């Protein structure tokens, strides 16, 4: 497996832990369909939260949150609709969050969580 995929997987694990720590329930991970992939799906009260996770080892090429573009968010929105269609049992409002993680190989991990970005 390529190093970048490894980093992504590590970041998603960190993000999932962070969500659980902030009182959310993770209900789905790496859900795929023909439109693409959703990193994390969680429940916060009666809200369904779709989370895009972006991980980088440093900010040498910009902050991870800066790499989440409008196009990426638009795709996440379409994916969210597809996910809801596939899971009719889950009801309530939806929300799209972004989590940026700076995870250096050695040292402190930084997590930034932005709620309702789209």
């Amino acid at each position, binding site marked *: 497996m390529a190093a970048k995929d490894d980093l992504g997987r590590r970041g998603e694990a960190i993000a999932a832990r962070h969500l659980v720590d902030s009182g959310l329930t993770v209900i789905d991970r790496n859900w795929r369909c023909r439109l693409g992939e959703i990193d994390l799906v969680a429940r916060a009260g009666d809200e369904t939260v779709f989370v895009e996770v972006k991980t980088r080892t440093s900010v040498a090429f910009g*902050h991870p*949150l*800066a790499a*989440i573009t409008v196009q990426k*968010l638009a795709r996440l929105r379409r994916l969210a609709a597809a996910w809801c269609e596939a899971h009719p049992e889950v009801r309530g409002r939806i929300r799209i969050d*972004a989590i*940026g993680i700076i995870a250096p190989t050695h040292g402190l991990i930084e997590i*930034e969580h*932005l*709620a309702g*970005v789209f």
Partner: protein
Amino acid sequence: MPLARTHAVSLLGLRGAMVEIEADLSANLPGWLLIGLPDASLNEAKDRVRAAATNAGVELPNRRFTINLSPASLPKHGSSFDLGIAMAALGAAGEVEPASVERVVHLGELALDGRLRPTPGVLPSVLAAARAGFTIVMVPAGNAEEAELVPGIRVIAVASLRDAAIWHGGKYEPEVVEPILVPAPSVPPDEALDLADVIGNEDAIDAMLVAAAGGHHVFLLGPPGAGKTMLASRLPGLLPDLEPEAALEVSSIRSLSGLPVGRSLATRPPLESPHHTATAAALVGGGSSVIRPGAAARASHGVLFLDEAPEFSSAVLDALRQPLESGVISIHRANAVAHFPGRFQLVMAANPCPCGQYGARDSDCTCAPFARRRYLARISGPLLDRIDIQLRVPRITATQLRLAAGSHRMTTLEARAKVEDARAAARERLALTPWTQNSQVPGAWLRGPQARLGSETTASIDRALERGGITMRGYDRVLRVGWTLADLDGASTPTPEHIGRALYFRKAMAS
């Protein structure tokens, strides 16, 4: 509250309007939203500000900034808002003191390395800020001298974004950077042109003296090599030093044109000599989004010299009629009107015909009469009407050169002293009127009871008028020049000789 505001200036012509910059920081994906009618170069400010902040080591949070420029209906242009936007953003982020940022007017463009670049138009912008009641202005180090010319304003000159943030209470270590300065003026003030260099043409020197003393516009007609350009370029030297108000205006126009202003206000009247291929926009000013001053505005309070006047397109020349009439250049666009000062002294020079030899003693003109007539007809009647002195300048002969070699010739300094005395006399005489110079006085007033001359004095022009040699308007113009001649001689009223000489000064086009 993640909100901060500061102030900047949007220039329209020489008039500045205060613009409030508001920055809001919201928990959203990183980005910049710039609203409030920015133009393309101002919209690029977001990229400059972000890069400059990173490279200056002044970190902005990775969140969304919404920058609003208010009043939203006023079109804003240029790069001088960069510093204000950066400071408002830093204030919203809590990196600097929002209260400190709010009471300061910020002007300046950011370089990507975080240093501040000097911008054109700082002097009129600072003036506008002072008039709007602000007392502290932050400008790039390269514009400091210019900004300090405005009285009653505290100028904070900063070399970089980091310095600016530190001044506003940002907790950063000072870092010395080399400030970006404006290149020093490469052309030294042209004091080398002296009136004493003009040999032989006594009439023309006299006419220049009269023009300077009365503020009269001049038309010089003569063959190539007669010294028309030489005479015209010496006219600014004859004019007295600029009054403080005029000096501020001249320097403001220079600043707006992106010319170096230096550490003191301009004291000498400017000379502008646009080439005859100039367009109307180049001469009076223009432009679609940014309205820039033209040569006529830069010549305000000085001399606008149009060499080879018939070669200018007639539409371009006629564009000068409005400023000649009102002293103000107004440029109208769909979204705004810009005003520039336009109180210049016009000097036009022309050859008598396309080949230039007509009327010269030593060579023959090869032009058809038709071509000759059409050549000078390119200068429209209404424009010529506004020119008081119309003079023929002949080539000087070898005899005149030999004669002149021994005699004393008036230097520019002597001439300027005479001009200053004459102007003072005119001002005193016109003290109770709205005018200060003879060229501004309307004909009706000159013929009215306040200034009526005896019939023996005006006999020569009365006769010329009866014969149809001059028109009523020409009559008034002769009177005006006559008064200036009297002022130069120290006489209280013009004598018949003064009037006769004034009549001679408008013979060029008649013959």
